[in-house]
């Protein structure tokens, strides 16, 4: 079989269409460059009735939204998950990592929580504070102008609070808290845990004439048909196309490797078209990888040549190393004061209206770094699983659990809306010994060698989640409530979730000034190959107790500006 080669030479080939790829597409195409975007999944538009799940009722799915087909349920907008048929990955014995992939235009931005937090000044220089990990080669002042531009371009609600490590921005006004959130504010403050309006990328107010304003259905995880929340397709790629950008979208195309010439420079990419299962080549002057931290590492490690025997741009042998995800643990509580609720529509925006950023100083604690607290509850739309063990909470009152008939009905309605949940999402320390590599013994169904993961939490992370569990319990008690189930103990490492489960994996192609210990420079350009850039979360040196998307967007914009400048100067 021949590899089918296109004669077209693109200025830039962008691999992946999520946050980083979407931003690169917008900035590079609007600079007049001819761009190819190669996406492993299908085209997706949340306004397309054939793809839409927003405003569907549970009974519109025969399984009432159960998670047998999609990992977060039928109505969630992620085509993919931790396990994708035909696209396996492996793990080193005794270690664990779960790798979430969304195969669709816009990638994981279609379903994400939209929690949009800037990194603060300390987050770029953590080694200076605790001696662990490494500093970034850039600081907050380098990224701030881009965070500002991202806020204005995409829209994020929140408030300027003047916090030292949770910087102010250009915010839309936040929605008012819901009832359970008022209880949380009261309960948290009792323990001196501060609470602020959350910072999320939904439009509570108009930002332009192209996108709609939030209509408070609480379903951002289903992707918004009026484009009132951020996803890379609706807010970056579609507008770039409308603005006349020269963009060729290649969907259902899975990139295998970056191709190179005799000098070791990139010449383009080769990919498998999933529809005809044949291999193709695209030519480009610059290749921008935005396939996600682990996918980009995989592509590079699979791009071996005489000039790059360990994989493209891997003379440091650092590609794949320093993989790290957020720490996470959850706890649920029952709040008797929230029983027998009056019915009203409190869907609000998708997710939380309030949150707690990290609030303590580590000097007094037995673990480094911190976490933020997310919380949920309320009179939500029922779906599969609603009403399981409908009166288990009776045990708090010494009443019989179980039964049938009229009592069940009363119990279901009595307890509806009376439970809350809390989740901590924290910063782990990047470790050289946590990595992904190529498993030469396994291929996916496209013939591409797969990734093998090797990841273990350290004591730092386990002590951090213990602190989360203790804090959550205290707040639940302050709310007049009881913990549901049991607070996680030492036997389960305090309920720390498996690496990868929080879907904040970063660090596999980290940036730095030294080409022996890092993969890309401070503009996300590969040290070894000057016409390859990485604009997903691979270049993150450390991950902060923030969600990575807003930083991916800001850095992708910054790297794209640099690419345009360098092309103008004919440096690449």
């Amino acid at each position, binding site marked *: 079989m021949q590899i089918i080669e296109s004669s077209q030479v693109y200025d830039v080939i962008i691999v992946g269409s999520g946050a980083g790829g979407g931003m690169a597409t917008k900035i590079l195409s609007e600079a007049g460059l001819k761009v190819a975007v190669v996406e492993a999944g299908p085209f997706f538009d949340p306004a397309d009735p054939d793809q839409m799940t927003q405003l569907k009722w549970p009974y519109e799915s025969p399984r*009432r939204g*159960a998670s047998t087909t999609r990992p977060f349920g039928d109505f969630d907008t992620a085509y993919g998950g931790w396990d994708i048929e035909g696209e396996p990955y492996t793990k080193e014995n005794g270690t664990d990592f779960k790798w979430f992939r969304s195969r669709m235009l816009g990638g994981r931005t279609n379903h994400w929580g939209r929690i949009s937090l800037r990194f603060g000044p300390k987050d770029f220089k953590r080694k200076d504070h605790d001696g662990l990990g490494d500093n970034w080669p850039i600081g907050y002042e380098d990224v701030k102008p881009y965070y500002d531009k991202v806020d204005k371009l995409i829209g994020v609600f929140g408030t300027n609070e003047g916090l030292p490590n949770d910087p102010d921005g250009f915010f839309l006004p936040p929605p008012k808290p819901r009832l359970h959130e008022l209880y949380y504010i009261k309960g948290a403050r009792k323990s001196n845990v501060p609470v602020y309006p959350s910072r999320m990328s939904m439009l509570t107010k108009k930002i332009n004439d192209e996108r709609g304003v939030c209509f408070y259905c609480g379903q951002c995880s289903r992707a918004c048909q009026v484009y009132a929340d951020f996803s890379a397709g609706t807010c970056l790629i579609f507008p770039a196309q409308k603005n006349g950008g020269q963009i060729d979208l290649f969907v259902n195309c899975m990139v295998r490797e970056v191709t190179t010439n005799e000098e070791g420079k990139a010449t383009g990419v080769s990919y498998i078209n999933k529809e005809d299962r044949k291999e193709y080549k695209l030519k480009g002057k610059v290749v921008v990888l935005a396939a996600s931290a682990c996918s980009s590492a995989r592509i590079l490690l699979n791009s071996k040549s005489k000039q790059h025997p360990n994989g493209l741009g891997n003379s440091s042998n650092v590609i794949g190393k320093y993989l790290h995800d957020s720490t996470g643990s959850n706890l649920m509580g029952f709040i008797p004061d929230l029983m027998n609720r009056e019915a009203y*529509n409190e869907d609000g925006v998708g997710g939380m209206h309030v949150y707690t950023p990290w609030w303590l100083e580590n000097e007094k604690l037995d673990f480094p770094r911190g976490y933020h607290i997310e919380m949920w509850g309320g009179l939500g739309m*029922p779906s599969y699983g609603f009403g399981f063990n409908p009166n288990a909470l009776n045990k708090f009152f010494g009443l019989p659990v179980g039964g049938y008939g009229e009592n069940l009905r009363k119990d279901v309605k009595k307890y509806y809306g009376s439970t809350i949940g809390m989740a901590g999402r924290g910063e782990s320390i990047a470790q050289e010994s946590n990595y992904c590599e190529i498993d030469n013994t396994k291929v996916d169904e496209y013939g591409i060698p797969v990734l093998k993961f090797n990841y273990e939490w350290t004591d730092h992370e386990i002590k951090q989640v213990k602190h989360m569990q203790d804090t959550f319990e205290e707040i639940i008690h302050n709310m007049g409530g009881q913990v549901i189930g049991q607070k996680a103990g030492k036997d389960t490492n305090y309920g720390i979730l498996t690496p990868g489960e929080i879907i904040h994996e970063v660090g596999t192609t980290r940036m730095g000034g030294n080409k022996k210990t890092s993969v890309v420079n401070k503009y996300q350009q590969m040290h070894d190959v000057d016409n390859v850039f990485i604009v997903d979360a691979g270049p993150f040196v450390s991950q902060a107790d923030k969600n990575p998307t807003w930083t991916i967007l800001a850095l992708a914009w910054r790297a794209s500006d640099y690419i345009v400048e360098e092309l103008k100067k004919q440096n690449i």
Partner: protein
Amino acid sequence: MDRRKSLKSILLGGVASGLAVHGCKPKAEAVAEEVAPVEKYIYGRTPKEKKRDQELFEEVFFNKHEKNTIAVLCDLILPASDDYGSATDAEVPDFIEFMVKDLPELQIPLRGGLMWLDHKSNLDYNVEFKSATEEQQKAILDTIAFPDPEIPEQEQPLEIQFFSTMRNLTVSGYYTSKMGIKELGYKGNMPNVWNGVPDEVLAKHDISYDEEWLAKCVDQSKRAIIAEWDDKGNLLT
């Protein structure tokens, strides 16, 4: 003796109520003249997902006797009353039939549990569960419907686990139906403008918004005005 043949005759004998065995995935013939079930469910499926739904709809798991027993059991769990419909009014048995194909690990516990019910009913009253009197049915349920909350579910006796699973599926199926959602009082899933907790609810819970917080929140009368900021990030519009 031909072992396979004898197994087949045992199997056929076992489903005496009439469902012929057409291999492992018998087709549902009754639905042929109506719209195919998969076409009734329009919820943004990918082609592959739609194909899977189609395959599940074409499969039949429970036989007629099992389905009838499930209907009787569901309506004991959520009976009709003056105000509300029953589980079967909300088509819960069809939902359960779909779920056991979607989650095959439910199949043996539910099928075996239904057998247990008939066994128990035959033993105590010399009649199958579905044909027993309501009083007799309830007497049986009273022995399996109240799990000890201190014992983990998977360590409970099989018949208690069976009932818990049936109750979970019935309650979930009912309260995710149109009728159940109405009864529950869920008011959302429609475009609206959230403007805070109603005053009477705040009063009832003796809780209030803090003025300083409220001042930062969105003024919904200005939501359609395009946002503009000064250089410091103060919203001007």
